[in-house]
């Protein structure tokens, strides 16, 4: 079991992910919808993994939030996004200990990826 923060500005998508991860035996410690809130939640909850959307509410995006978080921790992150363009992929690759899933994503894909990352870490 792992403590996970979901960073997602679409409430329905966040809810679905929370439910699926909960059924898979994980604990969702926070659901936030902006990069700033994600940084605050990370500092507060000290999770084991971040499930991060890239396009978020506010000025910062998910990748920028991870750049800030990386200064403090090498926590694993799974980026979930509808942005599948080359530039976004390149930016994701610049973040260490990160993987990428493209929305809409299957439940089984998220759970498999979460389990894979947690076992690696």
């Amino acid at each position, binding site marked *: 079991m792992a403590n996970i923060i979901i960073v997602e500005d679409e409430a*329905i*998508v966040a*809810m679905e992910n929370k439910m699926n991860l909960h059924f898979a035996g994980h604990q969702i410690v926070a659901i936030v919808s902006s990069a700033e809130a994600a940084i605050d939640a990370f500092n507060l909850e000290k999770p084991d993994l971040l499930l991060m959307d890239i396009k978020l509410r506010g000025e910062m995006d998910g990748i920028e939030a991870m750049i800030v978080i990386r200064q403090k921790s090498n926590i694993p992150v799974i980026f979930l996004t*509808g942005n599948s363009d080359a530039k976004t992929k390149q930016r994701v690759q610049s973040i260490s200990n990160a993987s990428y899933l*493209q*929305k*809409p994503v*299957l439940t089984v894909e998220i759970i498999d990826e979460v389990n894979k990352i947690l076992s690696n870490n």
Partner: protein
Amino acid sequence: MSLLLQIGNFFLNPKAKAAKNIAEAKRIKLTSQIATVSLVIAVFYHFVFLSFNDIRLTLSELVFIFCYFLVLVLNFVGYSSFSKFFLIATFYVNFFVISAICGEEACVHLLYIPALTAPLILLDFAEIKLIVLLVIIAFLCLITLYILNFVPSLTIQISAKQMYNLKFSFILTSMVGQFIVIYSMIFKFTKTEKKLDMNNVMLEEQFKSIFDTSFDALFIVEYKERRIIKANSRAVELFEMENEYDFYLQNGLDLRKEPIGKKEHLSIKGDIAVKGFHENEVLYKTKKGNEFWGALAIRLVFMNGMPYQSVRITDITDQKKIEKQIQTSLNEKEILLAEIHHRVKNNLAVISGLLGLQANYVEDEKAKVLFEESRNRIHSMALIHDKLYQNETLATINFSEYIHDLVEHIKKSYIPDTWSVKFNITCNEIFLDIRNAVPCGLILNELISNSCKHAFKDIQNPEIKIVCSKMGEKFTMMVSDNGIGFDIENGFKRANSLGLTLIQALSEQLGGKVNTTFVNGTQFYISFEV
């Protein structure tokens, strides 16, 4: 005399007035006038010779009358160059023959004096070689006459009084001829020069008015050194100069804001060599340091045989601003369209999420499967919006890439890790718009899903083949499996499956023709116009 000159004008070709220049028109006119005077004089002498009862003189003069008349006819029909030469030649032969018969005492050879100067007024000085040749021929005729001593054996025998009268009339004729030549040279050519000067002044004024009132900046530039030797008022205004002298001897390339690149330099040279002109858009700087965009046009021209560049610069700054506004607007619309595709895709993700949430509250496993199938259909559409968002044109998707991505997604949905289905995809780079891509993607999703779910029960080495091709405007897609075989057409008739109903409805929407065969599995073909 004036009457004779007027008669001469009657034989003038109407086209002579439109001769290439005034001087040439004048020479053509003079040829006609001199030929008329010569014709009348020749007729006069013909009657004089008749009184001598000398058949040689009479007949020869008759021939020369015909020759002078022929000159008029030639001039009239437009052979002006030949008529001038023919007139001078007729003079020389006429005087030679009559001199030989009448003898030195008759002083016919004095007529060579005006005849010698005739080429000077009838021919262009550009034809100096011909003039010199004709003068030499005239001298040769005279020398020949003196060498032969005017052929005494041919000389007519007439009384002293008749000879005196003949001598008197030929001296008079020679003087009249000389008078005509001098008159033509002094008075007529002075007039021509004046007319030419006036014409040049007029042409210069016309050129100046066109050059200076042009809406574009115009320059005459040295071909090699590219130094400006002439600029118009608009150029002064456009480049914010004090006057046109500010441009003089300045290198035309120095007017540019940025130095010319080697590539453009070669392009200008190449264009002028091949097409004779070069066109480009260039950013210029003014004397006061301001900038403007100019449409540059360079053309090679020749003045006095020397090559120059005729340069035109049109101010297109406003046009460029509008172009930039249009481009900005277009970029904004592209961003907006990309955002819409992204939004649609996100909304589809939300719908998929809602179905996923709902499925968690459903106990019935069959119902859960139906939810999952619906989510896959949504995903097949969302994938198209993702591809549209990625594509530069935002209007079409690379269907080959789409098939590969869709297959990967379906594999995750329906094919467990313990089971292996081989996918064989053959599809060139085919671009489809959203109108065709969405139904086509949904059909593909249903066919692959059906094969995965139903076709491979107890089948060794299951395989699904997808082949797409586009010939002209016709798109064809074939999806086949090596499974147990399924009669899709009968399935259509029964229509008790949503998947088959969707395939049928979407095929009709595409206006496609559907065929199925059952050879070692099921083969589904659809073709439609794109």
